[in-house]
């Protein structure tokens, strides 16, 4: 299983990811993503892969749900 994570240093708050993966990503009032760490499966996994590809700064990552990182 995979889950979504954002690299907050490279993220520039374009907000594209929240449109492509509304199941897991909301934006805060400054336009930065708040990511739900629940693993993605099925359609959400497809949306996640699309969002990862679309992020203009490559700040969105898919990591194994077993990863120690937060």
């Amino acid at each position, binding site marked *: 299983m995979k889950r979504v994570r954002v690299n*907050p*240093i*490279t993220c520039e708050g374009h907000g594209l990811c929240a449109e492509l993966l509304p199941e897991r990503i909301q934006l805060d009032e*400054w336009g930065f993503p708040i990511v739900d760490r629940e693993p993605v499966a099925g359609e959400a996994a497809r949306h996640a892969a699309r969002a990862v590809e679309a992020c203009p700064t490559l700040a969105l990552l898919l990591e194994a749900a077993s990863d120690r990182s937060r």
Partner: protein
Amino acid sequence: MTAMRATRAPELIGPGPPRLLAGVSSAGAPSTLDEHLSVYGQLPPAGAIDLPALVDASGLRGLGGAGFPTATKLRAVASQRGRPFVVANGAEGEPISGKDKVLVRYLPHLVLDGAAAAAHALGAREAIVALSRADRDGIDALSAAIAERGGGLDKRVRLRAIAVPDGFVAGEETALVQFLNRGVAKPTFTPPLPFERGVGKAPTLVQNVETLAQLALIARFGPVWFRAVGTADEPGSALVTISGAVAEPGVYEVALGTPLRELVAQAGGVTEHVRAFLVGGFFGSWLGEREAADASLLEGDLRSRGARLGARAIVVLPTSACGICETARAMRYLADSSAGQCGPCVYGLDAIARSFERLAAQQSRDERKQLSRWIQQVRGRGACRHPDGAAAFATSALKVFARESELHLRGRCEGKRRVLPIPGIAA
């Protein structure tokens, strides 16, 4: 900081004489190599001990704030491929903490022993002690101590003191590593963590200078000696910085488990009525006077009170100071200390600080709901834990100073005195 007052080594509360601070000379000068060896003796040769096993049995945990088991970190570094590197973290960016500066300034050889012992155990050839640029005394003491040791004592390990930029975030471990690699003292995204890929891409052990000083004693005297003070869960002694409304602020060595009350008594007792305690530094929490009455200096005990021991920096807030005003000042400092890299840290901490500033200024609109939401929202969303620490601090302020916030909303403030030392701002 009032750390200069801690030139004496206070008696350790509980069984036994002072341990870590036993070698602090009454003259207030850094201990020389001869003095150092006459108090603590020689380090055993690296081949004669199994350092990770000794550290494991002693139960030593990191003393830089996070409390991570030191043996686990040693083993994690050792399990990586490549020759490891050792960084002793003496940056001590926390404005209300003075213990690392005291340790480096008065006992430089103990810190160097710890760095050298860790390096020997890991097969590292180089160990760096990182100190804040502003800590001239520490840099002088350490450089003199390194020169005094020559090459003889630390065969095969090159020891160096390096000045790093001052500031709250510069002491975060990935910021140290990035500074040593490319001169940029800002945290990096993880993984890789320093133990995987640190200085010059080598697996890097980053350990607080006090952790290494304790390790140097464990290497000599062993885990049974280490556990002779403290509790079974939280063994040993530790350095505590206490300031604010006490007669003798400074750095003290206490056995873990010492009642907070006893520490305050050791620091000469309180000088005014107490409103609250700040425990664990600016990443820590406020504890109301009553809540703190029977607290002891243990992570477990403080956790059950919604606080944490952290890097063991404690401020006694008198009733002549206001908890909301002091929190607003500290939050502004934390927000301004952001490395400026992560949106949630940059905008979130600033919004939280502004909200506290409005509350402190007795603006009548109640925005505490929104403030709580912002505090919740920044947690876990930075590349480092700076937002998390700031959030814990802010949360405790809203809880402990609930009455004071109500008063502020009605245009009243109970104390104008300023107690927290904020760098760059007069108290």
